[in-house]
């Protein structure tokens, strides 16, 4: 098995060995996924808790409707709309990785590449203009990638929160005289996060798959775009290589989730 020795074959699409093609493009995908993760987790959980607390009130209905519409938006339709509005009309967030002038500087030999993440490296090099340029290019894909998944996380958080709020220990907390704010954010939320952590695995899969289509739309040269081009051109080696790579990331992601799970649920810690 050559694959076990790291030899995944020759990539026709990338015109270099598959492994090299993947590793060279991975930072772009990683950067996108990381930037998307924070708004998804932050906003999704925050709104999910809000909706559950205001159950059946206007705010709850409103949040749910927006979420279900968001969940119904195919990522490529949403991505095309984002591109149309924020680039064609407003001119704010262009596609690609970087502007041409920035690309040239980044490619120059004395530009330090520590993390290979465009925004972070720009800060390390003290090039605030490149940082802003990289940021401008990543906002569109991040909006697209996160929009779909915050809707998902919101729904899970809401229903998990509703279940927890009906639990007896929440009533115990109230019977102790715990203020409502602490009942929700301390007693209920900690417990509601346990099932949310378990679906995080599905979310990582979704975020990863999402990068394929989004990188194509926004013309970002990550591994998603590599896989898509390879699939269209029937480049087996590259497609298999990228899928293998994605699966490895997924296993690592699930490992992190298992650890998180133990952090949130003391009942798991023992066994």
């Amino acid at each position, binding site marked *: 098995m050559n694959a076990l020795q790291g030899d995944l074959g020759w990539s026709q699409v990338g015109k270099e060995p598959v492994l090299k093609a993947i590793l060279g493009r991975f930072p772009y995908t990683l950067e996108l996924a990381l930037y998307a993760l924070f708004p998804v987790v932050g906003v999704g959980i925050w709104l999910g808790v809000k909706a559950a607390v205001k159950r059946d009130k206007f705010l709850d209905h409103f949040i749910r409707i927006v979420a279900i519409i968001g969940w119904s938006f195919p990522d490529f339709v949403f991505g095309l709309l984002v591109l149309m509005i924020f680039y064609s009309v407003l001119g704010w967030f262009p596609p690609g990785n970087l502007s041409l002038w920035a690309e040239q500087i980044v490619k120059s030999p004395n530009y330090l590449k520590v993390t290979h993440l465009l925004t972070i490296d720009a800060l390390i090099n003290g090039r605030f203009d490149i940082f802003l340029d990289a940021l401008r290019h990543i906002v569109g894909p991040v909006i697209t990638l996160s929009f779909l998944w915050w809707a998902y996380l919101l729904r899970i958080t809401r229903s998990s929160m509703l279940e927890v709020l009906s639990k*007896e220990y929440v009533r*115990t907390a109230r*019977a102790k*005289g*715990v203020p409502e704010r602490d009942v929700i954010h301390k*007693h209920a939320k*900690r417990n509601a996060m346990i099932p949310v952590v378990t679906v995080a695995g599905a979310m990582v899969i979704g975020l990863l798959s999402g990068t394929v289509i989004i990188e194509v739309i926004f013309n970002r040269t990550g591994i998603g775009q590599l896989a898509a081009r390879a699939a269209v051109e029937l480049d087996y080696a590259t497609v298999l290589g990228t899928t293998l790579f994605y699966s490895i990331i997924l296993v690592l992601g699930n490992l992190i989730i298992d650890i998180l799970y133990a952090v949130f649920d003391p009942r798991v810690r023992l066994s």
Partner: protein
Amino acid sequence: MEKTPLLSVRNLRTYFYTEDGIVKAVDGVDFDVYEGETLGIVGESGSGKSVTSLSIMRLLDPKGKIEEGSEIIFNGKNLLSLSEDEMRRIRGNEIAMIFQEPMVALNPVFTIGEQIMEAILLHQDVDRKTARHMAIEMLKKVGIPEPEKRVDEYPHELSGGMRQRAMIAMALSCRPKLLIADEPTTALDVTIQAQILELMKELQKEYGMAIILITHDVGVIAENADRVVVMYGGKVMESADVYTVFKKPKHPYTWGLLNAIPRLDIEQERLYSIPGMVPDPLHFPPGCRFSNRCEFKENRCEIEMPDLAQVEPGHMVRCFYYKKVENIHNSSKVGGAK
């Protein structure tokens, strides 16, 4: 001598506004609780006894409303007119509550110590270190071995009986004047039940607090309550001191409940049970709510709801024909069994 009650509930009506209609879970309940005594509230599930206790704490779910005209006077204050913040300062401090299932009534993600300390820190002006000492003291007091170690354990690491002891420790940590115990032993093994009830009695003596003991178990009431309120269909059917209720019940429902207990002292061919089932609270019969199951009913019972009337000092009964039950006592000491 006339004592002023610690808690008096007057015309308490708690309705639930559901999709299928208005459920009158509690419909005009009156009773008093005096300092240091144990009041037992007994009734089948659906009798409104748990809703009564949640109404006192004002912890009903959003569908439940305490109707205008209800009064819950605690220590001279009407709890129903307090702000939510004022009420919060009473909960866990002056009135504490323990629940049926210690398995689910403790928060699984916090240690026992954290949960007891939370109550202490909320209501008393002490620092965390002192609160921790107090929590350990409380655990020792409720008979949990190695309290210094147990204080840092999570609820799932304790047995059912230990959990209920921890619940009691939490409830009593601020020395409440009134403890509401809603089916405190129902989920426990019989031997542990007795231990927990014994513990509650001891602590009651030590702290001088009043207890409202809510249960469907007539035996538990007989052994622990000073006075008894019998509830059915959201109304009080009979109330008196424990001796009177058990020796000379006057309401057909109470009579039925008592006859449903197996007894060793009398030979019975078959255990009595009240005919029929508790009606769905949306469809109580008109007139007396017990009329469709009552063995003594007359036509009048199906039209008119009797008042809760004093039949002898301290003994209230809601029945037109309580004399019929009295007569049975006089003719034979055994009821039911037919």
